């Protein structure tokens, strides 16, 4: 039979049985839409998790004084306290791969205001620090390079400190006494929550490291230097750059061991990779189940449809349809329905993903691969699950089919 006639017969049949057509397509629509939404949401969740992990600072490089091995005798880290601001300048000058660097000077301090006092840690840092540790500022602003240079007595306080000392009122512009030195509060840090170990990250005050050194500590050495690389893959090279800059700065000879330690957060990165891998598998599993359910739905309806259409098949055979004509018609019908259902499913899935993005704010991404896989699947399902019922229909005995009511 000519394809145009076949298409006409199949088209008539599809249009005339709207309920059956809808039910058949529903399986594909749900399957395809589910796959697209699941994958979109999953990818959104995945990037969300990655962003969270990045917040912990996966691209972080830490330099601490001392070395774990010195002349064959293990000394442990921080044996020698020999990190200075000079080292920070040396690294900044000697490295091209780091995007920010900051000394970290810790000064445990009793902070006093008119409202009361609070025991907390003051971090003396550079202007790069908030970027490196992914701190954002909820009100006010950060101190400037000029503030650092001139050791201005300005500070930013964490949420816990703000709540403890300025409950209800805006701390920005007020004065806080740190070791009897008045600091102007110029900003409040956004809430970060607890670390995995349970310590409160928001119980913090940050101030220019120069001010902390001069006003709160009076010492030249600094406890730690932190830096960040642009991407994870840059970390090994960035570490090498830092190491050579540090060795030059400390005038270490070829035979001397490092008197400092450079570390990164390999554990966190591993966790991130592992999480991504698990998420990928989870998505694949959910998608396959959705597709399988959709396919079985189609086959069920097609099988029921053969039974329901037995009499119609009998009529067609009585007026001269051959088995192959019936087979082809059924195949065309199921393929068309699956393809149309697939397209509708893509549209429904896409819209749902957009709506979900608006509601949750997640980055739900509908990738072209997902769409192509879903469409190819739906067409395949149509032919595959349509073939068995079609063959069943083609093999019917015309007399029995005619007699069937």
């Amino acid at each position, binding site marked *: *039979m000519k394809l145009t006639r076949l298409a006409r*017969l199949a088209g*008539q049949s599809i249009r005339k049985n709207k309920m059956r057509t809808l039910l058949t397509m529903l399986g594909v629509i749900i399957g395809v839409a589910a796959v697209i939404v699941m994958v979109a949401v999953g990818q959104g969740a995945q990037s969300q998790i990655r962003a969270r992990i990045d917040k912990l600072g996966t691209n972080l490089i830490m330099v601490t004084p001392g070395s774990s091995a010195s002349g064959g005798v293990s000394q442990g880290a921080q044996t020698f306290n020999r990190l200075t601001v000079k080292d920070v300048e040396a690294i900044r000058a000697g490295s091209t791969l780091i995007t920010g660097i900051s000394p970290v000077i810790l000064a445990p301090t009793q902070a006093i205001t008119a409202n009361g006092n609070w025991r907390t840690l003051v971090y003396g840092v550079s202007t790069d620090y908030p970027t490196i540790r992914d701190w954002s500022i909820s009100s006010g602003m950060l101190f400037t390079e000029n503030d650092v240079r001139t050791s201005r007595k300005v500070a930013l306080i964490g949420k816990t400190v703000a709540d403890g000392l300025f409950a209800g009122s805006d701390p920005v512009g007020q004065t806080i006494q740190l070791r009897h030195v008045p600091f102007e509060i110029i900003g409040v840090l956004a809430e970060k929550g607890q670390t995995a170990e349970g310590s409160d990250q928001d119980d913090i005050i940050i101030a220019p490291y120069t001010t902390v050194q001069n006003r709160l500590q009076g010492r030249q050495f600094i406890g730690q230097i932190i830096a960040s690389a642009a991407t994870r893959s840059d970390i090994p090279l960035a570490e090498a750059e830092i190491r050579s800059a540090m060795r030059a700065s400390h005038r270490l000879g070829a035979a001397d061991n490092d008197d400092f330690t450079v570390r990164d957060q390999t554990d966190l990165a591993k966790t991130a990779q592992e999480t991504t891998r698990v998420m990928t598998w989870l998505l694949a599993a959910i998608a396959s189940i959705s597709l399988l359910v959709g396919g079985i739905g189609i086959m069920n309806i097609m099988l029921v449809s053969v039974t329901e259409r037995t009499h119609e098949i*009998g009529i067609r055979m009585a007026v*001269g349809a051959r088995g192959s004509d019936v087979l082809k018609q059924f195949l065309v019908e199921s393929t068309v329905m699956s393809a149309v259902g697939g397209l509708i499913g893509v549209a429904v899935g896409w819209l749902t993903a957009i709506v979900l993005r608006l509601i949750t704010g997640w980055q739900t991404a509908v990738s072209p691969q997902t769409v192509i896989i879903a469409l190819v699947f739906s067409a395949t399902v149509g032919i595959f699950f349509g073939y068995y019922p079609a063959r069943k229909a083609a093999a019917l005995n015309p007399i029995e089919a005619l007699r069937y009511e």
Partner: protein
Amino acid sequence: MPDQEVIRTETLQRVFHMGHVQVAALRGVNLRVERGEMIAIMGPSGSGKSTLMNILGCLDQPTAGAYFLDGRRVDGLSRDELAAVRNQKIGFVFQGFNLLPRTQAIDNVELPLLYDVRDQHRDTRAVAARALERVGLADRMHHESSELSGGQQQRVAIARALATNPAILLADEPTGNLDTRTSIEVLALFQELNDAGITMLIVTHEHDIALYTKRVVELRDGHVVRDEPVRNRRNAAQDLAAMPPEPAEA
């Protein structure tokens, strides 16, 4: 004249196997039908008339014997060949009309033309329309089956049977689902078509219906027990005129 012969069967037999029991539905039927005949095949249920009808209609195959249709031996043909014979040589009219549901009259009539393997009709739509005109349904072409009365549905089925210009029209209890007046209307159409040269075989168990044909073949227990011309043949058109008038069909 041998070319006047449309159907010839020679000791046609059909045995059904039901488990271990063998049931002989036809036990050697010899039948010869010439062009232009109008035959009623009669008999009580179980006489084998439906089985004969299915074999003559190439829906079923005889167990033994020979069947010649329009000069060609058709017993022993393959499924696809039989489908082509049904399509080209035979027009069916059934008791239950057997129209496709939710389908317009013209689409139903066009159906056999679409399955024509030889693709003889360029404009199948026009052929279907002419067949509908011939049965007086030119104004109902685009009505769906459910929008037509029983008599109109049967006329659509007759148009479908005529569409491929078959050698013979087989009708199985064509008036079984119709009231008396509509039955006679359908018979009037049959007589009109027969007068125009169409060979017709009508299976019925009603003697009244047989009176409108030209020849009665009666079956009993798989044998032909009577085969004689109809005397005092009735004219359906005249009977219809004599009937009390009825409001026109919607």
